[in-house]
């Protein structure tokens, strides 16, 4: 059998790629997708702990993460749409109206 390390390092790698996407990209939709990638990486580590420890709570947490991801998709994309309608761009460098 594989050790738990394999799955955790895969999860860490996907999470870091997601962080890279959030930091580097300037398109709001791609930043949003990178956040989904990070949530998914967390799900992988939760499920791997759940099945290596024989404890089901981890999979219940995956349900909650999924709910948050769906709510975030609904509201976050609606925010992107109304931003685009007001400023006709999704470049986050130009959406700086709250910057001090």
């Amino acid at each position, binding site marked *: *059998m*594989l*050790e738990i*390390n*394999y*799955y*955790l*390092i*895969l999860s860490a*790698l*996907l*999470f*870091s*790629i997601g*962080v*890279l*996407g959030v*930091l*580097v*990209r*300037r*398109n709001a*939709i*791609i930043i949003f*997708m*990178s956040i*989904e*990638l990070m949530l*998914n990486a967390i*799900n*992988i580590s939760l*499920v791997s702990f*759940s*099945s*290596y*420890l*024989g*404890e*089901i709570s981890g*999979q*219940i947490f*995956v*349900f*909650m993460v*999924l709910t948050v*991801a*769906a*709510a975030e*998709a*609904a*509201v976050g*994309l*609606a*925010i992107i*749409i*109304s931003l*685009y*309608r007001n400023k006709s*761009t*999704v470049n986050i460098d130009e959406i700086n109206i709250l910057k001090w």
Partner: protein
Amino acid sequence: MEWKLELILFVLLSVMAVFSAIMMVTRRSPINSAIFLIINFFASAGIYLLLQAQFIAVIQVLVYMGAIMVLVIFVIMLLNLQDESKLSEQFSYKKLTSLLLSVLLFCLLGFSVFFGFSGKFTSISGEAEKLGTAESLGKELVLAYSVPFEIAGLLLLAAVVGAVVLAKKSFD
């Protein structure tokens, strides 16, 4: 035999997941990114199957690939971002710093996993196969986690109301 099969499938799926994640971050057109993210979610569903979490794997396909990514692709088409592909995404010192930071983050997470969990959990628990079914999940969800269950419902209600309020203006 069993061990070999698991290792082969794991390597195949994780290479697929990491490759598609990197492609997702680096593609210019948002629609290509979305397609690569779908491939990544598919590989993750395979990883969940390897971990004996069957119901989570099905949900991954159903919700992430079937619903969330459809919504993302809808929004990309709704905003019609074709002409914005050159969104001032050139190389700069900021990007180099971000790359260094995320490599550093990966090293940190990798070292802590490596030194914290080496040799501790070497095989999947024998009960894992029974745990991943819809029945055991439902039992735990309803009896032990009934309040989070209701709060998830409230969160979804808030999501509906928020999305309607934010997108309402264009109906009028």
